[in-house]
Structures are given as structure tokens and as C-alpha cells.
């Protein structure tokens, strides 16, 4: 079963605009992580938010977590062309803490 699932699948915005991506998951978690992947490259860790945290910031990134709705969002403010990438959320899988599940990702295109 798909634990983390991002929405939308693809997003296209102009430079300077904000981009919001959402992630839903099914089971209880200890934490949720967001990663970025540039085309053909490995993933880069962005933020880890723990289940007892509601919001976390890192530079132009803001992550929220709503455990009651089993959802998280990633906001990128003042987007740049260099933010063009795929963004994934990741959580523990159904086998609690023993299996790592990444969602299918949101493909973000930032147009100059």
C-alpha cells in the first residue's frame, strides 16, 4: 500500500511565486521527511518534522504536519528556477519503523 502520496503530481509556476505541495499518509508515524531530486540525480534531504511538531522552517521552506489528518505540506516561498525538481515525502511503512516508503513525488517546474 502507498504510505506517502504527494499532491499534485505536477506543478508549474512562475519564478517568484510560492509553491505548495501536499503529502498524505495512512499509518501512525514518528516523523515525516521531505526530499528533493533533481533530474537523474540522487535525493537531497530537506526537512525532517517529528510527530509532535506542527511546523518547521528552513530558509525558504516551510513544512507543516497535521497528524489528525495524516497530512503534511511543503511550501517553497519566492521560488527560483533552481527549485525545479521532484519533491518527495517519506515516512515509515506499514511495518512500523522497519520499512521506508517514499511517495510518487510532485514534479515542480519553475519558469523564468
Amino acid at each position, binding site marked *: 500500500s502507498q504510505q506517502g502520496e504527494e499532491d499534485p503530481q505536477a506543478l508549474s509556476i512562475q519564478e517568484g511565486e510560492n509553491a505548495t505541495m501536499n503529502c498524505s499518509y495512512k499509518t501512525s508515524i514518528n516523523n515525516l521527511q521531505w526530499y528533493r531530486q533533481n533530474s537523474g540525480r*540522487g535525493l537531497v534531504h530537506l526537512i525532517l518534522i517529528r510527530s509532535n511538531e506542527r511546523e518547521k522552517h528552513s530558509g525558504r521552506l516551510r513544512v507543516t504536519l497535521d497528524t489528525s489528518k495524516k497530512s503534511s505540506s511543503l511550501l517553497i516561498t519566492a521560488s527560483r528556477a533552481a527549485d525545479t525538481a521532484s519533491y518527495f515525502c517519506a515516512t515509515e511503512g506499514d511495518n512500523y519503523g522497519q520499512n521506508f516508503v517514499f511517495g510518487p513525488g510532485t514534479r515542480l517546474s519553475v519558469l523564468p
Partner: protein
Amino acid sequence: EAGVTQSPTHLIKTRGQQATLRCSPISGHTSVYWYQQALGLGLQFLLWYDEGEERNRGNFPPRFSGRQFPNYSSELNVNALELEDSALYLCASSSQTGWNQPQHFGDGTRLSIL
């Protein structure tokens, strides 16, 4: 600090052959994870090694196997290659075992099955 390195960058094989992919974690990292990323799809968890032991494996057939060496580097072996094994194989490492740590990824091995 050197990042996670994977070799080879690209690998071309034919159906039925065997492939070996290698991963060197960040120095000091003891946990190594392997993922398969088919074209346009998300990552599928393959294997997790820590301190030389296999801690867990994803929903893949037994022809996907691996090992972790005393220096914490790791090897992924895929036997009896099938066309659907064509994918980007990513290795990641973390400083402590378990899911509470960020994973640091290499740039992957692109495996193509002809």
C-alpha cells in the same frame, strides 16, 4: 566530507545476466539503504543494512540480494535480470540506524536491461 558514492554510473546488461552494484557510504555512517526507482516513479525500498546485518527488505523477489562489508560499503546483486529491472538504483546512508535520521543519497546506478 565525501558523499555517498555509487559505481558504476551506468550498467547495460541483457536478460538473464547478473548485475552487481556498489555503494560507499559517508565516512562514519553504518546504515546503508538500497532503493529502486523505475522511470517516472517513486522510490521502492529494497534493502537495509546496518553493522553488516540485513535489517529488512522490501517486497522484491529473492534474486535481489546484497551484503554489507566490514568497512560499511555495500553491494547489491541482481540475478536473472528481467526487462522490468531497468531502473535507477539509489543507495543511501545514515549515521544511525532507523528512520529518525535523514538519509544521504548517492547519484545512483542506471541499470538498463536489453
